């Protein structure tokens, strides 16, 4: 059974369709939820949490219905909101302990878990200071800690690297990766930064304007594609013409000729063609599909899949 599943999930705000008949099925792992701002990432997370009801359709977390079994779900999920959510005039320890108790942990367990989780996210001496004096990076860590403190099965992180500098970003991503791989907690990371998703996630859900654009393991997106990029200093058009006449499928992209690899023989064909035309060859490389391509019109990649 998938950990998170939605069937025909829609959420309309008046005429605005934040989610439109979304069908998603997620297995445990680190899941990247990508989409532009307003694509419906936060809406999906909030529906899964049972904070807002869907207009139609069904969402389940660990087999529990997000509308009718909200309370059971909430023991299983931890949520890190996108925005600031920390009162400035209490210490991190006190705040996280309080949140642990609200999650149902008894007094002693709440204190122990808080100490453990704050150590895990990398807050040490400063944990007793008031949160108001923290840097953005430290605040993000406290936000992550409060989401983790009750040991959830699923962690829903909404833009966890918001406002962080490059170092802080890397640290946060590393933390997310460790949480997902070492602790066996399924993490859903919503982000509009594909680079981040590429770094940490094992599975990708791309949504755009409330529709599911793509859903597949991350390797599927970044795997070597059967396209050979041949960069020449000049004569790209001639080369493409010659290759096409020899039966290869090509696309010209600036100084590059993208050749669909249809067998090992293609390398010889390319070599011979370049030699015949005496073109100055710069490089020959198998192209990797990049994550960005899923939001672009994937011309060469699309051909490669045919």
């Amino acid at each position, binding site marked *: 059974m998938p950990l998170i599943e939605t069937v025909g999930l829609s959420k309309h705000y008046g005429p605005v369709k934040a989610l439109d008949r979304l069908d998603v099925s997620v297995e445990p792992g680190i899941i990247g939820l990508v989409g532009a701002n307003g694509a419906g990432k936060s809406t999906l997370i909030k529906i899964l*949490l*049972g*904070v807002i009801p869907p207009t139609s359709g069904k969402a389940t977390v660990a087999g529990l219905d997000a509308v009718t079994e909200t*309370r059971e779900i*909430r*023991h299983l*999920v931890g*949520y890190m*909101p996108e*925005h*600031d*959510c*920390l*009162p*400035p*005039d*209490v*210490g991190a320890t*006190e705040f996280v302990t*309080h*949140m642990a*108790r*609200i*999650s*149902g*942990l*008894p007094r002693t*367990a709440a204190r122990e*878990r808080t100490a*453990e989780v704050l150590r*895990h996210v990398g807050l040490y001496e400063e944990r007793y200071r*008031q949160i108001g004096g923290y840097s953005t990076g430290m605040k993000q860590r406290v936000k992550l800690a*409060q989401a983790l403190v*009750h*040991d959830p099965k699923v962690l829903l992180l909404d833009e966890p690297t918001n406002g962080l500098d490059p170092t802080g970003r890397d640290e946060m991503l590393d933390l997310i990766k460790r949480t997902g791989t*070492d*602790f066996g907690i399924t993490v859903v990371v919503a982000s509009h930064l594909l680079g981040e998703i590429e770094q940490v996630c094992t599975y990708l859900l791309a949504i755009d304007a409330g529709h599911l654009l793509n859903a597949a393991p991350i390797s599927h997106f970044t795997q070597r594609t059967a396209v050979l990029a041949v960069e020449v200093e000049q004569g790209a058009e001639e080369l493409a013409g010659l290759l096409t006449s020899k039966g290869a499928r090509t696309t010209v992209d600036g100084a590059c000729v993208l050749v669909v690899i249809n067998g090992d023989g293609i390398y010889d064909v390319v070599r011979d063609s370049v030699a015949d035309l005496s073109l100055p060859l710069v490089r020959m490389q198998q192209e990797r599909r990049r994550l960005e391509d899923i939001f672009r019109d994937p011309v060469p990649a699309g051909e490669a899949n045919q």
Partner: protein
Amino acid sequence: MTSNSPVVVAAPTGSIYDLGYRHYEGARRGRVWAMWSLYAESLRGIWGFGRPMSAKAIPLILAGLYSIYALIQLAFSSVFANMRAQGEEVTLVTYADYFTAMWIFLFFFCVAQAPEVVCRDQRYSVLPLYFTRALGRVEYAAARLASLATAIFIVLMIPNIALFIGDILMKTDTFTAIGDEVPKALPSIPASVLIALGLSAISLALSSFTPRRAYAAIGIVAYVLLMEAIPAVIYSIGRSPVSTESSNGMDRLFLLTPVTALQGANAWFFDAHLDPNTFLGHITAEEYLVAAVASVVVFTAVLMFRYRRVAA
């Protein structure tokens, strides 16, 4: 540390400090525990425990100001006892009229602390963290309300206890004094419960509509003072100058007053006479009691309604 602990040395991998992540296998309690935790945290917050010194000053000062008259009377109880022994007439403040006389400080306590209870969570967007846990919106509001009511109840009981001790100290025979005083003091407990619920429901309901403490405080002051003043103005305009008898029904408006209704209800518990200088019109203590209970119900409903709708 490792030297006297050979087992650790023998351990194949890892540092003894790195315990790794451990899953939590213990008990998970339900919403009653969540409400209790929120109630306790909230009550601590009202008194500034776990917060900076400045957060403790205001509630303590206002609680002190509300109780000061009773505390002074307690301090001078032996003096008053001597005066009484010498046959002098001494008028002392009683349980029944303490709130009516000193309510303004308790009101300021509400104005200062009710926004503290509910505005912070909206201002700093903490609410989503609560509402994505096993704590419902109504439960959240109920726990917050209970905590403020408890805090106000504590403030109300300080002078009552001081008056109680003072009255006992004034008597020579302590045991019979306790026997005499307890029945007189007991109505102050249900009366204080009602006053605490009334004041906390009004001030929290109004505070819950804004994330800004200052606006909430202004809102409470404006509402209470206007609702105290408007019925009095309409009543005095409507009252015929010829007849002192007010039978035009305008005095019913006094049932809408937030504080006067509580004062009247307070008098009902002590079976006390309603001083016509304080209580204008012809309204009985029973009617004030009904009005006070109704206002608790209405403002609690407003508070719950607000939290059913507030964005998380």
